[in-house]
């Protein structure tokens, strides 16, 4: 009897809880915390909604997790920054096609005192070597994110293996960019981050950019539509509409126009 009551009440209760599942014309975008925290989507998405009527819902997690979620079909569109992993995603049939959207760059930040003596004229490999030799604390994302993947590639490029010092001066935080930055700031550590996140970060204390501008610090963002043959539930029409806008003239212009403190955070570079 009570079960009957529950069976009647529960659906009503749940349904009353705001609008139900995604309606048509709603794009679920799995993306990275860096793009979200930079405020880019807050500037971009209202323009898209105004132009098309479609809504975009952003779930911001690390690149690795975003890709995993998209593999589970919990995304219509994927916008991340780890080109090799993105191409593998498409290769394995989870995504239909990948396009470049925009880029910015990574920067190495560290305490103003700069105990490792990293010079702004150094290459990334030289900088990391100085850091390694000085055993200066370095906070690594350690979370399989785009930034983490990039960091691993940079150490590899410098022929260094810091993981063997994990827990000593090499600190694997296993958390997002913001949390890792907070940890770096509090423990006087260096860390790698993308420029957009750093510019927006509110708790810099006595940390600053110690190394930037190296070619290998290039940070490319790509967008992928999740393959509807693999995930029949995705809203592929809305997904392609969004990607077309983002990589097209209006989206690219909007990206270029987004500024924080008069600095441009992302540089559009979609193939025309």
């Amino acid at each position: 009897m009570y079960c009957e009551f529950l069976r009647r009440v529960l659906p009503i209760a749940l349904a009353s809880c705001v609008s139900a599942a995604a309606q048509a014309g709603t794009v679920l975008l799995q993306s990275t915390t860096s793009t979200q925290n930079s405020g880019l989507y807050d500037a971009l998405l209202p323009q898209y909604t105004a132009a098309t009527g479609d809504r975009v819902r952003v779930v911001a997690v690390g690149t690795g997790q975003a890709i995993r979620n998209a593999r589970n079909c919990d995304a219509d569109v994927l916008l991340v920054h780890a080109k090799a992993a993105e191409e593998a995603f498409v290769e394995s049939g989870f995504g239909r096609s990948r396009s470049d959207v925009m880029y910015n760059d990574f920067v190495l930040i560290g305490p103003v005192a700069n105990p490792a003596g990293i010079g702004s004229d150094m290459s990334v490999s030289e900088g990391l070597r100085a850091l390694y030799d000085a055993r200066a604390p370095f906070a690594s994302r350690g979370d399989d994110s785009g930034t983490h993947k990039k960091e691993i590639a940079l150490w590899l490029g410098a022929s260094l293996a810091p993981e063997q010092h994990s827990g000593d001066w090499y600190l694997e935080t296993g958390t997002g960019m913001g949390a890792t930055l907070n940890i770096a700031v509090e423990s006087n550590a260096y860390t790698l981050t993308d420029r957009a996140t750093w510019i927006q970060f509110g708790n810099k204390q006595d940390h600053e950019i110690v190394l930037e501008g190296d070619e290998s610090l290039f940070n490319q963002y790509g967008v992928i539509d999740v393959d509807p043959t693999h995930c029949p539930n995705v809203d592929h029409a809305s997904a392609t509409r969004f990607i077309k806008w983002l990589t097209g003239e209006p989206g690219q212009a909007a990206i270029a126009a987004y500024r924080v403190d008069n600095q441009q955070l992302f540089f559009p570079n979609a193939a025309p």
Partner: protein
Amino acid sequence: MHSFSEAFAEAASLLLSFDPALLEIVSLSLRVSLLAVLIAALIGLPLGALLAIGRFPGRNLLTIVVNTAMGLPPVVVGLVAYLLLSRAGALGPLELLYTPTAMVIAQTVLVMPIIAGLSRQSFVELHSEYREQLQLFGLSTRAQLKVLIWDARYALVTALLAGFGRATAEVGAVLMVGGNINHYTRVMTTTIAMETSKGNLAVALGLGMVLLLIAFAVNALVHSVRVRAERAAYV
């Protein structure tokens, strides 16, 4: 540096400005948590009563399970709920992941054992006191239950409050199944986590204070009702 006074100022300005974004977040937090507590109560209170009064095989085991579940780690609940609600999961066709409904479900799972466990405790105490007298009145089990529910009502409300506190304070599960989507599934706790990760510590702490204030207001309300009842000395 990130001083508390700065956070107080932030909290005050957040509150006084009636910032629509803040109101949206607060109202979603309250709606999700209240609904979760309501559903959890519909299941948890009868379950608590059943565990306290019922006689059936497996009752002790079920009691231990419920008591254990009172301390369920939110991230584990979030993870399991994610795996179930994901489009690749068993409940995928319902398309519930990254919706407020998913958050309600996760919070219900977290809160239901708390309500069941605490209400069971209250029912056990009152039942051991009332049992014989109610039997002497010649009441059926069902009628006895009604008396117990009524006379334990303040303790039961306290159990609901504990559940509500847990629901509003929880971040791990709602983040995982809600996704912290702006204007859709962003609640107080996920906003606090996000602002912290942006390094906006004062804003985060300010929001935390708003959250505390809400919890305080709810508790004050219930406490005053309770005190009035106790003054009438019916407890």
